[in-house]
């Protein structure tokens, strides 16, 4: 499984370490909240709302350079909109990888 990286964030920051840290702090704060809302909606089978949550989470997936995972998130969002839960396991393992990565920062 691919691992998160800072290639996008570094290209965005252009050496501005203060902004880089600010952005990481925002992601560390926002990601767990979005993840929690997603799990709550998914567990209660509120798939349309869960799709909205995946939509938002996929931006963070792309920011962290997870290109293949992003594609999975796009497909999973579309699945959820049709009430289809295929790809859930893969999506949740992406969330776990990001969680572990952010915890180590």
């Amino acid at each position, binding site marked *: 499984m691919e691992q998160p990286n800072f290639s996008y964030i570094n290209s965005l*920051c252009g050496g501005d370490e203060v902004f880089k840290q600010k952005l990481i702090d925002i992601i560390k704060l926002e990601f767990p909240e979005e993840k929690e809302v997603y799990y709550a909606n998914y567990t209660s089978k509120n798939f349309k709302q869960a799709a909205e949550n995946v939509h938002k989470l996929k*931006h963070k997936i*792309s920011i962290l350079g997870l290109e293949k995972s992003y594609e999975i998130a796009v497909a999973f969002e579309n699945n959820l909109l049709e009430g289809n839960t295929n790809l859930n396991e893969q999506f949740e393992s992406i969330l776990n990888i990001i969680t572990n990565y952010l915890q180590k920062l």
Partner: protein
Amino acid sequence: MNCIIIDDEATARAIIGQLCANVKSLNVLEEFSNAIQAIKFLNQNEVDLIFLDIHMPDFTGFDFIETLKKPPKIILTTSDANFAIQAFEYDCIVDYLVKPITSERFQKAIQKAETMSPKVVAASASDKEVASSGNDLYVNIDRRLIKIDIPSIYLVEAKGDYILVKTEDKNYTVHSTLKKIEDKLPESLFLKVHRSFIINIKKIIDIEDNSVLIKKDVVPVSRSNRPELMKRLNLL
């Protein structure tokens, strides 16, 4: 250019803010996590450019644009490329950025916004007026622009995400809103008589209590719209 950022995601606002900070000509006045707050701000402040997220809960970016009488230049920011076609329906939208936004792509969008002078935006607005006072209306159906003769339209009905445009010859189902077509139709001919209906007042056959017979269609007239309808009629 004075600008604002509207995005429900803090990470996205931070990224766009940083990209703006790298452009000398941009001055970020405010950031908003929802469109309602931004509308309040715009009621009291003028801005040249808005960075607008499409996908927001409750009130989407397109809903937001619909509320603006004189929209400034808008750059859409979204994780979803599927809205691109819809975006081109709005003259005020100068570019469409798919997240994650790169510096290079952002610079291009700003160049577009800068080269699109206020005159061009004003011209777009006046084009709208010309179009609405002219005889033709082009509607997008299955990616084809189909010309409709405006005076031949006798009824427009809202149907969820679509509108049904009825003309003398043919009916058209178009992915649009009643508000959008109302802006394009000349006020001298058309009147919204109900939240779901616009009628061509020249085509009225008769009026009875709270309904209008127009061709073979009986159209409801809401209590609030009835006085305006009566005002527009040449009553004996």
